[in-house]
């Protein structure tokens, strides 16, 4: 089975983000694999154990330094990597076209895994666009995945622990959620082995990518700081509770 995992190179979730102008962030912060994509790579590795003659190809659209995220995917169990290199900021319509073209060029997928969203642009949609370009079925926020023959049975999480279970015909696209598994933490030998695996670089401009009929472009960006001035609620627990209730009723008007 050909398993493709699309991963994204994003700023570390613990990093403070600063702007260098009104559109671009200071990218000197550490970048890592998008956390949801770690679940996708981990699931791919589990599938390969189940279906041994599988190949896992990690694919990433990004700048040259995104190679380090592909290297992490290799350490977590991917067999080889493909970097679709571009210096451009790509919206999801452009990204999906590039990934689609790169997967076709590479050979074609039986299953495509990726994270349910990226923690930088938070678009939540690239998996659906890749699916539509291939005409493959798509599910997102997957919490369990079972493959038998040419079918995938996937449970997906809605809010509050609610579950929807789907049956998809392969090939299909799965957006991994946090409930899917616990990400593999590569051991030192895994890391050493991964250094011998290959990463191929393809320029996005070399791919046969059609122009998207629309776009989404950042025109300005500002840090979201909401400076609040805390007022103290003092007194005994009884008095504090009474004041909280008063605030909920009279100020916030959320309690009758």
């Amino acid at each position, binding site marked *: 089975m050909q398993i493709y995992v699309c991963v994204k190179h994003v700023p570390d979730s613990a990093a403070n983000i600063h702007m260098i102008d009104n559109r671009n962030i200071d990218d000197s912060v550490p970048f890592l694999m998008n956390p949801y994509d770690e679940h996708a790579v981990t699931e791919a590795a589990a599938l390969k154990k189940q279906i041994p003659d599988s190949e896992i190809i990690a694919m990433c659209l990004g700048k040259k330094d995104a190679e380090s995220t592909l290297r992490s995917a290799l350490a977590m169990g991917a067999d080889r990597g493909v970097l679709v290199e571009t210096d451009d900021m790509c919206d999801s319509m452009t990204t999906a076209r590039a990934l689609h073209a790169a997967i076709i060029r590479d050979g074609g997928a039986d299953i495509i895994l990726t994270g349910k969203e990226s923690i930088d642009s938070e678009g939540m949609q690239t998996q659906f666009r890749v699916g539509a370009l291939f005409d493959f079925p798509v599910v997102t926020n997957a919490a369990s995945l079972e493959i038998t023959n040419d079918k995938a049975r996937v449970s997906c999480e809605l809010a509050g622990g609610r579950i929807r279970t789907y049956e998809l015909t392969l090939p299909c696209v799965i957006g991994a959620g946090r409930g899917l598994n616990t990400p593999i933490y590569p051991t030192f030998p895994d890391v050493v082995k991964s250094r011998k695996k290959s990463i191929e670089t393809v320029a996005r401009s070399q791919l046969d990518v059609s122009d998207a009929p*629309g776009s989404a472009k950042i025109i300005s960006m500002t840090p979201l700081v909401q400076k609040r001035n805390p007022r103290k609620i003092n007194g005994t627990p009884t008095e504090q509770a009474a004041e909280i209730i008063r605030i909920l009723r009279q100020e916030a008007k959320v309690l009758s």
Partner: protein
Amino acid sequence: MKQAGIVIEMENCRVKETSLGMVTLAGRTADSLTALVMSGISDDITDHLSAHGVHTIVDLSLPDAPEIRQNPAVQATAVVHAARKLKLDRILGLSSPEGKDLLPRVAALLDAPLIMDCVDADLNTGTATTSQYSGKMMAKIQLTGEILMFGIRPNAVLPESKPVPAKTVAMTMDAVVPENISLLSWDEADTEGRQSLAEADIIIAGGRGLKNKNNFSLIFDCAEKLNAAPAASRVAVDEGWVPYAFQVGQTGEKVSPQVYIACGISGSIQHFAGMKTAKMIIALNKDENTAMMANCDYQVLGDLFEILPEIMRQL
């Protein structure tokens, strides 16, 4: 003339308040508002929508069989069909759990740009304001294309009354039931009567300060009394005190309630990323020197094991 189609979500056969808020937002910049309803239309639905500015109410006429009408892939084809037939050039829906599984499907089928989790949108200019970098940044985004799509964060705008005359239209379509994706089973909305995190007015969240799984029931009990949604920080989830579905933060749910009550939560950068757009934050902690206590509207220094039971007693 901007023709906006708005995907309406229902709860207990009524239009969700958050959907009405989205109608209000759309009405500020669109010329005509068309509500796309998937559940069939009742007088109550018509009244609520027209009272908030909807001009046309469309019954998407989905098939009766629940496993077909609940399948988001089927719903997406119905929305696409309506968009084309009614020549809508703007499509809005909630960035709710259901919306996250529906709107991107519609966008992919239409090959139209979509911004999810918008806190504001100008349908006339095609711009949207949304969070990026996990809530650390607010970005203004320009969309271009024939049809532009916006996923609106629940509670971003509260509903305002704007009565207009409305007409109802039933779509006739042969539902395309996709062969490659079928819905086998699904949980109905909120079986335990709990508020959904994304849409609750009040959220009461617990963190490390709850100390263990048993104590966490205090958050659930208090939530029930306040008609609030219970939530948790990542620590509480990783410790196994509550399921992941309750997590607020960078890799959890992003919420904008009217009031966020943070109990024993220190306030990591990742937690703030999920809740800093709350209208009001009340922080309860026995330690004054936490990020949450420094960046809230009301600071309650004290023992949550005394204060929370007291709140329940007084309600």
